[in-house]
């Protein structure tokens, strides 16, 4: 079965098969043999004579310590439209379109609202400042849109995951 792996908005078609304890992996038609061993939470990959150390943390694959955001898509791209899809969770170009919920990444205090309902916002524009861990953090828009609803109130504290704002 062909898998679709998304990185930086680009989709790779990947086929994986087992052979003699190793894996045969083809990426967009180019095949290579990969030897995999797990060692204390990290993966050692040997591809040919090249050695890579990999750790996988949620949807982040660290290759030699360099993080790569990866989404696994299904063979049917329409599946990726649902909010639960790992591909859309990556917030890359796949995330464009549709309402954006801006929620608190951690418990904190709403210090300042930077936009109001009806405002047009640009990608990466600051929306709301939340104070947590002794620091002020600006939450930003993933993509362009219009502020549909502001639920956060300045000066109040919020729980992690609380929806602060909705953009359309």
């Amino acid at each position, binding site marked *: 079965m062909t898998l679709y792996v998304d*990185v930086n908005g680009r989709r790779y078609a990947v086929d994986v098969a087992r052979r003699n304890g190793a894996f045969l992996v083809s990426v967009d038609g180019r095949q290579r043999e990969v030897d995999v061993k797990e060692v204390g939470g990290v993966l050692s990959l040997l591809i040919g004579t090249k050695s890579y150390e990999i750790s*996988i943390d949620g*949807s982040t694959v660290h290759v030699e310590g360099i*993080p790569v955001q990866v989404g696994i898509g299904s063979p049917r791209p329409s599946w990726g439209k649902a909010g639960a899809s790992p591909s859309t*969770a990556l917030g890359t170009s796949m995330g464009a379109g549709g309402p954006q919920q801006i929620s608190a990444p*951690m418990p904190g205090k709403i210090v300042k609202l930077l936009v109001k309902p009806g405002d047009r916002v640009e990608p990466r524009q600051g929306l709301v400042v939340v104070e947590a861990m002794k620091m002020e953090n600006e939450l930003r828009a993933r993509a362009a849109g219009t502020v549909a609803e502001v639920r956060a109130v300045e000066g109040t504290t919020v729980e992690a995951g609380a929806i602060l704002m909705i953009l359309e």
Partner: protein
Amino acid sequence: MKRILIANRGEIAVRIIRACRDMGIEAVAVYSDCDRAARHVRLAGRAVHIGGNPPAESYLRIDRVIDAARRADADAVHPGYGFLAENEEFAAACRDAGLTFIGPTPEAIALMGSKTAARQAAMEAGVPVVPGTEEPLGLDVPDAAIAGLAERIGYPIMIKAVAGGGGKGMRVVSSVAELSGAVRSARSEAQASFGDPAIYLERRILNPRHVEVQLLGDHHGTVIPFVERECSIQRRHQKVIEETPSAAVGDAVRRRLTSDAAAIARSVGYTNAGTMEFLLDGSDHFYFLEMNTRLQVEHPITEMVTGVDLVQWQIRIARGERLTIDPAAAVKPRGHAIECRIYAEDADAGFMPSPGHIAALHVPSGPGIRDDSGAEAGGDVPIFYDPMISKLIAWGDDRPQAIARMRRALREYDVSGIKTTVPFFRWMLDQPDFVDGRFHTGYLDEILRSRAGEPFTPPDDERIEVAVVAAAIQHFLRPNRQNPMNPTNPLNPVKPGSAWRARARSEALRD
């Protein structure tokens, strides 16, 4: 001194416990609710619970810390840094309770903790300070008088609000023509922000470096200064990289800088560890800024180039011992050391804090590398405290070797579950201006502003392809994995966490 209570947590508590162990002294940890299983609690010989998670309910509670010392039968207290370290009431409360406070006297903390009093002490010791007005300039001071003062200080000058902070009421004036307009707007901004229109003038030092001198003073009148530390790589006035010696300080400046720092300390009878901070301009002039009356975060780099254990000496000084360090060796660095402060922050998301569960942690080691850490795999970075999890220190024969070793160590440093500033440091250590030693205190903020939000360590094509291969193999082994954070996947080290942690992680992917 048989048992020392450490009134702190995290990496610095661990550092002090280690010094205690080296000296055969028992360490007593204190902890808040969420720190029950923290590393410092498990490393210590004894541990006492002191309250709830917010610092104001635990690590900042003088009464509870003193009570914990009594309960554990400690005879001394080390405050570390942060929390109560520069609180003269705490130092006095320890003294009143018959506990040896491992630090300066409450009187010295009070005196040198006041910026104006410390500045006065520096001037009396004949040490240069940033030229400026001594008295606040109220509304009654006419423009002509202010122009006269500005002329004497020398342009460019800064106008600052007496009650100020955060840049409010601050103006840069480069000539007399701009002065009266800037005075007017600074005053009205100061009035609006702080309810006090009083201002003062200070010479503006262009593109200064932050250099500082660590010193130790014993109770027998000896003060020993150490080779300077360079701490100009700062983000929003917070140090992120420190090194020693400074690439901008030659032997002649070092002699003046260290002897001036010691002169201030001697003039106020300072004891134990402290640091004098200076601004250094482009023509070898330095100006006293302020004093920190405690051990500093960046103390390990001084230890690396001098071979002196500063924490052990803090304890020995508090016991009444005489300093036996060779003063000449203390100002003669052996090699070069660099420290990176590793924070639980997502640098690619504007340095957003990234608390949570540390799923996996691989810490570098090898020649010249020291990791002073409070973090470990399976542990948590709580949301209540400073997010610094570790200090990574590299030593080399010279600066290029220290940088090369730091790069190697950063490449080996691998943390899963939370984001850290490691990717940022990998980028930072490749910046040509950093490598050449050409920077000042505003340098990092300037280059960060010029970035368009691209990742600090973007993967190249080869790494992307390897990531695709690894993700596909993992998916092949667990095809039912719908959610990338599925904790049941044996190749996925992320452990089940509370809903908010999972949320924090997925939100952190947003930029």
